[in-house]
């Protein structure tokens, strides 16, 4: 359900819109870098249109190999690196974006054949650090307003199996943005990480002068849509990396759990294998181990992915429905363990 982003478009999207040469909008760099919280998404001028589909000059659409699950919402992701500035490759990890950069992500669902946006989140790199802000779209779909305190929006959609689901979609508040985007208590982008991106896309960024060098990546995360052709362990570990590891890492919000689910983690206990819960409380579901090798049905990790009630459901934020395909991927990995 991920909206395809043409990789070939990156180099030219900045100058051509719909095949015709038209005046292209310019981002308001001051809105990104100046103090304060812009009241409307349009204040940044990231897009040339009111519906936020036509990226302005320098606003680059991208996608991830294995994305974060967000209640089956379709996501439109954009990077903005100001004119004359360059991102820096940092091994296979997070690409270092210079001050003045922004990451823009819109969330929506298909409605009568059109994508109807719910919210757009922006991460702004200011001189004093990163700032995360949520904007909520109006009914007319022509403006998105800042909602520091978050919001809830009822949503009905068709899931990949064809079933209809109705949920209370949660737009995170500013603090909740940080809960997932914190490294040692400081707001930090979760991505994009080079290992979770297409090599050709990164090469194009380099060619366009927006990235200093092609990152060296030992093993890329599998492409989620092609997971049937990828090793079961790689699919599951990529899923955990993208969906869990921003909190479940030594520097993250869930550090005190002792459970670390990053792609690079090698310690089996840190990964939850044979690890007893620490402060899971009723999240344990009467089970003894985070991951019981060979036995997904008795693994707390799977149990909590399958539940919805707060205090049990994982992730704690941003999930109001079960990601059946994600559960299946993680369960398959555990089932093959000995």
């Amino acid at each position: 359900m991920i909206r395809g982003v043409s990789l070939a478009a990156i180099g030219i999207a900045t100058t051509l819109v719909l095949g015709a040469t038209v005046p292209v909008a310019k981002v308001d760099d001051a809105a990104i870098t100046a103090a304060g919280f812009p009241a409307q998404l349009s204040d940044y001028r990231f897009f040339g249109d009111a519906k936020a589909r036509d990226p302005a000059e320098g606003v680059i659409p991208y996608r991830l190999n294995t994305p974060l699950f967000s209640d089956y919402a379709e996501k439109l992701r954009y990077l903005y690196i100001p004119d004359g500035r360059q991102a820096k490759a940092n091994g296979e990890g997070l690409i270092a974006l210079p001050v003045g950069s922004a990451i823009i992500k819109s969330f929506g669902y298909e409605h009568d054949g059109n994508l109807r946006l719910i919210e757009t989140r922006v991460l702004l790199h200011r001189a004093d650090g990163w700032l995360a802000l949520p904007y909520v779209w109006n009914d007319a779909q022509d403006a998105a307003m800042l909602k520091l305190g978050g919001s809830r929006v009822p949503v009905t959609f068709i899931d990949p199996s064809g079933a209809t689901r109705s949920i209370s979609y949660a737009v995170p508040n500013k603090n909740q943005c940080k809960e997932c985007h914190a490294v040692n208590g400081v707001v930090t982008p979760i991505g994009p990480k080079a290992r979770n991106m297409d090599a050709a896309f990164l090469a194009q960024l380099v060619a366009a002068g927006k990235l200093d060098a092609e990152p060296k990546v030992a093993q890329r995360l599998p492409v989620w849509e092609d997971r049937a052709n990828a090793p079961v362990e790689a699919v599951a570990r990529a899923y955990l990396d993208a969906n869990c590891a921003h909190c479940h890492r030594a520097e993250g919000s869930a550090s005190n759990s002792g459970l670390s689910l990053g792609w690079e983690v090698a310690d089996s206990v840190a990964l939850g294998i044979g690890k007893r819960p620490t402060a899971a409380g009723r999240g344990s579901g009467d089970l003894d181990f985070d991951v019981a090798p060979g036995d997904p049905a008795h693994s707390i990790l799977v149990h909590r992915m399958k539940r919805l009630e707060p205090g049990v459901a994982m992730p704690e934020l941003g999930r109001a429905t079960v990601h059946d395909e994600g559960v299946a991927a993680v369960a398959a990995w555990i089932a093959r363990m000995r």
Partner: protein
Amino acid sequence: MKKIMFGAALAAISLSSPALADTISVAPGEGAQERLQEALIVAQPGDTVELGAGRFVLTDGLSLDVDGVTVRGAGQDASVLDFTGQLAAGEGLLVTSDNVTLRDFAVENSKGDGIKSKGADNIVYARLRVEWTGGPKETNGSYGVYPVESVGVLIDGVIVKGASDAGIYVGQSKQIIVRNSVAMYNVAGIEIENSRDARVTGNYVSRNTGGILVFDLPNLPNLVNAGNFGGNVRVDHNLIIANDTPNFAPKGNIVASVRKGTGVMVMANENVEVADNVIADNGTAGVLVVAYPLSFGDAKYNPYPRNVLIDDSNSFVRNGRDPQYEGGAQMAAAFGGALPPVIWDGLGKNALVVANGIAALSLGLAAQGTDVSQAHPAPAAGVGKDLRLAPLAPVTLPDAIEIRAQQ
């Protein structure tokens, strides 16, 4: 709704607060969720977010991430944050900033933990109430108040009822005082876990499954204590009475193994003093001192209790009359109906110092991990008070913290 307070007194209480501190008042009613959350976001260091009297009906967890903010209600029964209809988040209120004061309000029926503070140094929890109003239930949230990974924690005058894990839980922290608080109808009343330099004093701990727990668990980062494990904990001047609620914790959690009727339980910890408490009517044991019973894969972890002192200043009354483990009833019968007030599993070197005049029983377990059904009970050799190591240094918190608790 912003009121400016010209307060020399306010300015004086926090070194970081500006000369002018704002009070942001939030009333219950329509839109309480967004109004209160926005107030917690826009507050500046030194500001007070003032909760009006009444019931705030909330649908999502709240969070505070600004240093030096006070959240103050009209009283622990007057201002209620009601999470009965909560749809998401792992706790009712989450604090992730330093020098925060939470006082004079209540949190009810949060789906996960009540109030959690993580990496929040010098935090004060004063005169709060955290309660699951339906009584003890497995579906209640886990912890009532839950400071973790913090240096400087003061919990004073807090009431917690109904937590399906620990009512007051301090984890992976140091410099901790839990005092003058009430913990009832929780699985564990008060729990100090993987923490150092803690004092638990003047609390009323009753009708829980277990009263006061001092634990160490393996495989935790414990960054605040540089990877060290728990220790230096003084449990004194508490009333630990009739902890007789059947265990209602979900299995898999370590507290699910706590036996009904445990007064004080020390597991895998070092330098713990139990003194000047009244410990009465706890059916399994007045004080239980044991090794961590499960297998573990953590080379640095010490599963044994070390240097636990049970002082003769404790008053033990009618404990050990209904021990909740296999063979316990026969054991109690063999001792004339009641076991000695102090029970030790018999594991660990220099595990326990019991003052003269206090009876203690060793279960004589053969090795760490041996089940209690394999016990070989025998009176623990009376160990004189003179064998104890140096007394614990008192835990004191900076004056600025004490002042914030007493306003």
